C-alpha cells in the first residue's frame, strides 16, 4: 500500500522543513495490564479539548495481562475519524513487539522509545527520540510497585512537548480522569511534568508533526458506542435487561446497569424500575428477554457472535410466536479463541436469517455513538410495533472505541408500544384473533397477561389466527404469509438509508455501520487523487427500502464496502434486487480484525474500476 512519502511528510535529515498540523496518528504499543489506558485517554482528551478532531482505537488481546496492546489516536483537522493506515508516531513501550513495530513503520515516522531498547539502531529513515523512562519515573514515584503504572504518563509529557499540546489541557484531562483518586493524580501529574521537562531539556524537534488549537470539537462529547447504546436503551424505557458476559458487548450492559442505578430508581421509594439479570448463558439471556417481552415489558439483551449463535432457536421462536425483544450484537471476529477482541461485520447474513424455518429479522445498522443511541430507542419501538426480535448490529470498533459525538438529543416522540388490544379495540373488532391481520399490515393485536383482556396460548409454528393449535397446511401458510406481509411493512418503518447522489457519478458506494468513516475519507481520496466521483448510500437497516434499488439502478457499478470475507451485505443486497441489477454489485472487503481504513477502500475500488474499464475496452 502506498502511503505518504518521506517528502510529503516534510521529513528531512535536519529539522522539519514544514509542519504537518493536526494530521497524524499516534500508536502507543504497550503490554496489557500495564495501566496505559489512563495515559492514552488523557492524551486523546487533551487533543479533543484543544479543539482537534480525534478518534481513539484500542487494539487489545484476549488476555488480562502480559500480552501486547496498541492504542491508536488519530488527530485529523479534516475531521476523518476512521482508522488511518500506517502510524506517524510510535510510542514503543513494549520490548516484545518493539522491533516488529519499528520495522513496520513507513519512512519518516517518529519513534519515542524506552532508551535501553536502543531502537535507533534498527533503521536510519525514522526520527527517534530516546526517553529513559525508568530513570525519570524513580524520583517522582518512590513506591516501586506503582512505577509500572505511573511511567506511562511520562510519554504523555514527552508527546505534549514534542507536538506542542498545551500542558494545561493535559493537566485538565488528567484531572478529569483521576479526580476521584487524589494520590494517583499527584503521582501522574509529577510523571507528566517529568516527561515534559525531559523533552524540553533533551529532545530537539526533528519531525514535522504539530498539534495546534482548533475549534472543531466544541459542544461535542467523547463516548464509546456501548455506552451510547446503554444510554439509548435507558431512555427507551427498557425494564428487563438480561445478558451474559462476552467481549466486546459486556460493557454495554454493565454501563447500562450503572446508569440505571443512577437514573432509574423510583424517586419516592428508592426502588428499581428495572431488573438487570446476568443469565447463565445466552440461551437463557434471550429466553428471559422473550419471557419479559411476552408479558409486555420492554426487554433486551446484548451479546456478540458466539451468543448470537446460541440465541438462534429462541430467535426463531420469537419470530414465529411474535414476541418483541431487542438484541444488541456487538460484532467481533469468529468463534473460540484467537481474535475475539478484534472487530468485524461478520454476523450480517447469519443474523438476518437466524434460526430455522422461514425466519427473517429486522436489523438496525448504527455507524456512530449518536446513531446507536437513536437506534436503541427506535429498536424498542420497532420490536413492539412489529412484535418480533429486533437486532441492533454494532461492532467492536463502535462499541469499545472512543468516538467524538454530538450530544444525545432527548427523545421527544412518545414511545410506540405497538398494537395492544384495548377494551375499545376489542369492542370494535367484535371477535379478536391473536394472529389475525385486521389492518392489512400483517401486524395483529396482542394481549398480555394481567391486562384483563382475553388470553391466548403462545407457541411456535403451529397455530391458526386465533392462536389455536393447528397443524393444517393452510393455517401454516396463511400465518407465515401474514408474517411476510409484516416484514414487507417493516421496510417502511425502519430508518431509511442516507443517500448522497453526486451529479454525473457513474459509480456508487454502499456502506453501513463503522465502515462509513473510512468510506467518507475514501470518497475524498477517490475524487482528489483519481478524479473519480462517487455517489453514496449508507444503509441503516434491513429490510431495505425502495431507495436501494433506485440507487443501484442509477449507477454502472456499486461497491459494497464491508468488514467480512464473503460480502455478506452485498449478498443480502443482491437477494433484494431485481436480478438484472445484481451484476452491478461489487465487493470491497476488509477482514483482518482491524477497523477498515480509507486507503484500503480507495486502492481496491481503483483496482476494480481499472479492471472494469479494461474489460469494457476488450
Amino acid at each position, binding site marked *: 500500500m502506498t502511503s505518504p512519502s518521506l517528502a510529503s511528510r516534510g521529513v528531512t535529515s535536519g529539522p522539519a522543513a514544514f509542519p504537518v498540523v493536526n494530521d497524524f496518528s499516534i500508536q502507543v504499543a504497550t503490554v496489557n495490564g500495564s495501566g496505559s489506558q489512563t495515559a492514552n485517554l488523557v492524551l486523546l482528551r487533551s487533543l479533543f479539548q484543544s479543539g482537534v478532531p480525534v478518534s481513539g482505537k484500542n487494539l487489545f488481546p484476549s488476555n488480562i495481562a502480559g500480552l501486547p496492546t496498541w492504542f491508536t489516536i488519530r488527530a485529523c483537522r479534516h475531521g476523518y475519524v476512521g482508522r488511518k493506515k500506517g502510524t506517524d508516531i510510535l510510542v514503543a513501550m513494549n520490548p516484545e513487539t518493539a522491533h516488529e513495530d519499528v520495522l513496520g513503520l513507513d519512512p519518516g515516522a517518529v519513534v519515542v522509545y524506552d532508551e535501553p531498547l536502543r531502537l535507533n539502531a534498527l533503521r536510519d529513515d525514522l526520527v527517534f527520540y530516546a526517553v529513559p523512562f525508568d530513570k525519570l519515573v524513580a524520583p517522582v514515584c518512590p513506591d516501586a510497585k506503582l512505577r509500572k503504572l505511573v511511567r506511562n504518563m511520562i510519554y504523555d509529557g514527552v508527546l505534549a512537548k514534542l507536538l506542542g499540546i498545551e500542558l494545561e489541557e493535559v493537566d485538565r484531562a488528567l484531572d478529569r480522569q483521576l479526580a476521584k483518586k487524589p494520590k494517583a493524580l499527584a503521582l501522574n501529574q509529577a510523571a507528566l511534568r517529568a516527561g515534559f521537562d525531559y523533552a524540553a531539556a533533551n529532545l530537539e524537534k526533528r519531525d514535522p508533526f504539530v498539534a495546534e488549537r482548533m475549534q472543531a470539537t466544541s459542544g*461535542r*462529547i*467523547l463516548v464509546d458506542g456501548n455506552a451510547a447504546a446503554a*444510554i439509548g436503551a*435507558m*431512555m427507551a*424505557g*427498557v*425494564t*428487563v435487561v*438480561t445478558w451474559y458476559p462476552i467481549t466486546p458487548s459486556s460493557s454495554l450492559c454493565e454501563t447500562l446497569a450503572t446508569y440505571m442505578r443512577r*437514573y*432509574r430508581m*423510583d424517586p419516592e*421509594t428508592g*426502588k*428499581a*424500575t428495572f*431488573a438487570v*439479570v446476568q443469565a*447463565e*448463558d445466552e*440461551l*437463557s*439471556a434471550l*429466553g*428471559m*428477554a*422473550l*419471557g*419479559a*417481552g*411476552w*408479558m*409486555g*415489558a420492554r*426487554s433486551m439483551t446484548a451479546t456478540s457472535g458466539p451468543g448470537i449463535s446460541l440465541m438462534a*432457536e*429462541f430467535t426463531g*421462536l420469537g419470530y414465529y*410466536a411474535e414476541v418483541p425483544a431487542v438484541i444488541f450484537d456487538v460484532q467481533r471476529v469468529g468463534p473460540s479463541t484467537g481474535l475475539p477482541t478484534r472487530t468485524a461485520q461478520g454476523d450480517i447474513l447469519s443474523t438476518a436469517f437466524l434460526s430455522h424455518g422461514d425466519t427473517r429479522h429486522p436489523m438496525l445498522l448504527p455507524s456512530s455513538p449518536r446513531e446507536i443511541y437513536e437506534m436503541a430507542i427506535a429498536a424498542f419501538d420497532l420490536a413492539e410495533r412489529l412484535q418480533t426480535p429486533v437486532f441492533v448490529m454494532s461492532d467492536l470498533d463502535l462499541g469499545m472505541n472512543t468516538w467524538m459525538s454530538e*450530544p*444525545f438529543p*432527548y427523545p421527544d416522540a*412518545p414511545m410506540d408500544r405497538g398494537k395492544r388490544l384495548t377494551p375499545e379495540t376489542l369492542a370494535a373488532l367484535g371477535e379478536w384473533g*391473536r394472529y389475525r391481520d385486521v389492518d392489512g399490515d400483517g401486524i395483529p393485536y396482542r394481549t*398480555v*397477561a*394481567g391486562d*384483563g383482556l*382475553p*388470553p*391466548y*396460548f*403462545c*407457541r*411456535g409454528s403451529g397455530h391458526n389466527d386465533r*392462536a*389455536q*393449535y393447528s397443524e393444517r397446511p393452510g393455517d401454516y401458510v396463511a400465518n407465515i404469509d401474514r408474517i411476510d406481509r409484516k416484514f414487507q411493512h417493516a421496510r417502511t418503518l425502519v430508518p431509511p438509508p442516507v443517500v448522497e447522489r453526486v451529479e454525473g457519478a457513474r459509480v456508487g458506494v454502499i456502506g453501513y455501520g463503522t465502515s462509513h468513516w473510512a468510506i467518507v475519507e475514501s470518497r475524498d481520496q477517490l475524487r482528489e487523487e483519481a478524479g473519480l466521483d462517487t455517489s453514496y448510500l449508507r444503509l441503516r437497516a434491513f429490510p431495505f427500502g425502495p431507495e436501494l434499488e433506485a440507487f443501484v439502478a442509477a449507477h454502472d457499478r456499486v461497491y459494497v464496502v464491508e468488514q467480512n470475507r464473503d460480502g455478506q451485505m452485498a449478498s443480502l443486497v443482491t437477494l433484494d434486487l431485481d436480478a438484472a441489477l445484481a451484476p452491478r454489485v461489487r465487493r470491497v472487503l476488509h477482514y483482518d480484525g482491524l477497523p477498515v481504513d480509507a486507503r484500503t477502500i480507495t486502492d481496491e475500488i481503483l483496482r476494480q474500476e481499472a479492471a472494469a474499464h479494461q474489460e469494457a475496452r476488450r
Partner: protein
Amino acid sequence: MTTTSSSAPAPGRKVNRIGLELAAYRGGKSTLCAGCGHNAISERIVEACYEMGVESERVIKLSGIGCSSKSPAYFLGQAHGFNAVHGRMPSVATGATLANHRMLAMGVSGDGDTGAIGIGQFVHLMRRNVPMIYIVENNGCYGLTKGQLSPTADLGSTLKNGVVNDLPPVDLCALAMDLGASFVARSFSGDKKQMLSLLKAAIAHRGTAMLDILSPCVTFNDHEGSTKSYSYVKDHEEPLEEISFVPFFEEISIDYEPGTVRAVTLHDGSKLLLKKLAGDYDPGNKAMARRVIHESAARGEFPTGLIYVDPTRPDFLALLNLVDQPLAELPAGRTRPPREALDAINDALR
C-alpha cells in the same frame, strides 16, 4: 379462548370461594394418550386451583417441549400460556416473572426437558429461587419422541426394544434442594390426595416450588423392568409423611395426633400439616432430607411427600428491590428519565 373446553362432566353447582365452578379451571381437551400420568396431573392442577380459589387471569402457564409440556393447554383455559422451546422454559418463566411479579407462574416440564437439554436452565432457576411452581412430569423416558431413555431412567431399567440403561439417574429432588429451591416435593400421578395437598401448598409458597411427579408413560415405559411403571411406583413409594394442607382462608380443623404433627406456615399464612410416618423426618432439615433420598434410592424406593421446605428464603425478585408496580405495567413517565438526567449524562461526557 384458544381451546375448546373439555367434555368432562359438570361438577354440579358447587362453587369455590371466588364463585367459580370446577369447570372454569379446565382447559382444552387433552391429546395425550389415554391413561398417561400427565393427564392425572393436569386434573389435580385444575382441582388445586379451584380449591384455592386461584384467579386464572393471574396465572401464567409455561412449558418446554414434550408430551408433558403440551399439558398446560389442557388446564386453566383462561390463563395465558407459553409453550417455549425444548428445555428452556425456566428462562422464559424467569423473564416473565421479572416483568410481572404479581402473576402466579406455573411451569410444566418433562424429565427429558428438565434433566437433559434443560438441566442448565433448571439448575439456575433453582439457584435463583424464582417464585414459581415447577412441575416435572417424570416418566423416565422421552414420550414425544417415542420412548428413548431420559436422564431420570433408573440404572438397569430397560426399554421396550431391549436397550438397558447403564447410567445412574439424576435425582431432581436432591438436585433442586442442593441448589436452593425452597420447596421440594415428590409425588406420584396416581396419588390424588397427596398430589393435591402438595399442589395447593405449592400455590401458597413464595419461591421455587419444585414438584417431581412420577408419571408413568403408558405407551413407552409402563412395563416390567421399568421403575417408572404404575406397578413399580405403587409398590415402592415410601411416603415421608401424611400431608394435609390448610389454605390461609380456612380454619385449622383437621385433627392430628399431638406430637406427631408438624405445621409449616407458608408465605400467605396457609399451613401445611405433616403427620410423620417416618419417625423424626423433618422437611426443614436439608441434611436429613438428603440422607433419606439417598438411602431410599439405594433400596429402590421413592420417598414421596414434602421433602424440603424453607418458607423464609427470599425469592429472586425480592433480591432485586423492584418497585411494587409490575415492570411491564410502568408508564413511560416512570421509565424514561427526564430531560435533566440526559443533560447531566451529556455534560459528564464533554
